[in-house]
């Protein structure tokens, strides 16, 4: 009996030894007496903090969305804005004041950016600027019959400007349901294959 007891003690000790880790070997068991707060307070605090952080992040993003709402009517706002690297830039070129086509300010670009694009682009798919203007003017004059073409151009235009799907316009449904930041390469590929030469990011 004693031998068995000894053996079981030894095996118990051995199994105790197996279950313990290097860092815990010489430590005393943690005492749970006299705890002021709840046992799981770190756990609860951590998860509450994490949830607050995620919700806060979401609200900050939506707040940015709300406060950044565009003005009701301001034809000059788009033109006056200057953003390097983007083609929706400060338009220095001559403007047609009577132009009502919404795509007009986006198509015309300053000469400097145009030349910059020429130097960058090596695909040879872009037309010259005068041709752009004539294309736009033609589009304006034949508004009605070219409604579908215009819609198509708008589609392409907005798919070009659709910096990865932040603005998921219903017209540009060729991008499908993809959302934010998911398909930048699709945008670039479409730009590469497109025949249109808008003020292009590509």
């Amino acid at each position, binding site marked *: 009996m004693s031998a068995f007891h000894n053996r079981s003690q030894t095996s118990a000790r051995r199994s105790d030894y197996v279950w313990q880790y290097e860092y815990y070997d010489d430590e005393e*068991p943690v005492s749970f007496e006299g705890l002021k707060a709840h046992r799981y307070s770190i756990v609860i605090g951590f998860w509450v903090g994490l949830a607050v952080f995620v919700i806060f992040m979401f609200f900050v993003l939506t707040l940015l969305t709300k406060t950044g709402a565009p003005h009701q009517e301001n034809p000059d706002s788009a033109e006056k804005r200057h953003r390097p690297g983007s083609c929706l830039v400060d338009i220095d070129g001559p403007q047609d004041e009577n132009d009502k086509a919404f795509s007009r300010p986006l198509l015309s670009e300053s000469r400097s950016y145009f030349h910059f694009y020429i130097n960058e682009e090596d695909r040879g798919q872009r037309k010259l600027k005068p041709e752009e203007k004539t294309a736009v003017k033609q589009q304006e004059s034949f508004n009605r019959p070219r409604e579908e073409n215009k819609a198509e151009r708008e589609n392409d235009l907005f798919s070009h400007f659709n910096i990865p799907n932040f603005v998921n316009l219903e017209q540009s449904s060729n991008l499908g349901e993809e959302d934010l930041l998911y398909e930048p*390469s699709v945008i670039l590929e479409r730009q590469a294959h497109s025949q249109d030469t808008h003020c292009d990011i590509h």
Partner: protein
Amino acid sequence: MTPFSLAMNVSTVNQSDCPDVTVPFPIFFAIGVVSLAENLLVVVAVIRNRNLHSPMYCFICSLAAFNTIASLTKTCENLMIVLAENGHLQKKGSSETKLDDVIDSLLCMSFVGSIFSFMAIAVDRYITIFHALQYHNIMTMQRAGVILAVIWTTCGVWAVLMVQFFASKFIMICFVAFFFISLAFICFLYAYMFMLARSHAREIAALPSSKGRKFRRQWWRGSMRGALTLTILFGVFVVCWAPFFLHLTIIMVCPLNPYCECYRSLFQLHVVLMMSHALIDPAIYAFRSNELRHTFRKMLLCSEWRQCS
């Protein structure tokens, strides 16, 4: 012993009021198998479809590959533990400990690698937006290949070092610091991209036309969706990874504190969270792509019906 094998060993329960929360093995197996299948599907789809041979998909494929390794090794480890508990394997045998080390190295490598892949994806998207004109010059396939080679090599080396020298606090501090730095980096990149695209879209919507109002609505809706997507992207990353890293921090900082021990008792839950991140990742990154979905459909359906070329 390394932290991953900490999971399955039970601590001295008698003296603790916070018993270790154990997650049943079927759950581990289920998560492991499903995430393995998903990520393997993504890897095979990207490799097979020529249209997907672009830097962006290479990074997504690398992420899926790391997740595959993680799921595979975690499933193997679970299997080993089940066998060990049933007595078929010795816990302290030399071959078992060597295998345990290999498994831990692979797990560590895949965790670090998936974080690196997230960073690579974020940088790739950043370049797409901010340097769109030069994107094809900056991010060529060769450069993407070099970046991936560097990532994989770094992860391999770091994993081996980590497992060899895990007892050293310096390594663990490096690991935790690396996590927080990459978290901040990714957060900053995505927030910056969001703000730029928001103001860009605002300009589009501010155009003077009858369609202006329609585009304003769409702008708002698009931005809302963008905000939600960003929150999901980032939120899932943080929720799945932060608990484990807090665990590592707590091991270093307060091993004796009872509160800390109660947090440590939830280790298996935290590991489940990390594994489920490998499960959720394809849904967030890969399955959103039309091209990839199309490839999946073709692969899965064509293998059944053999009608597709």
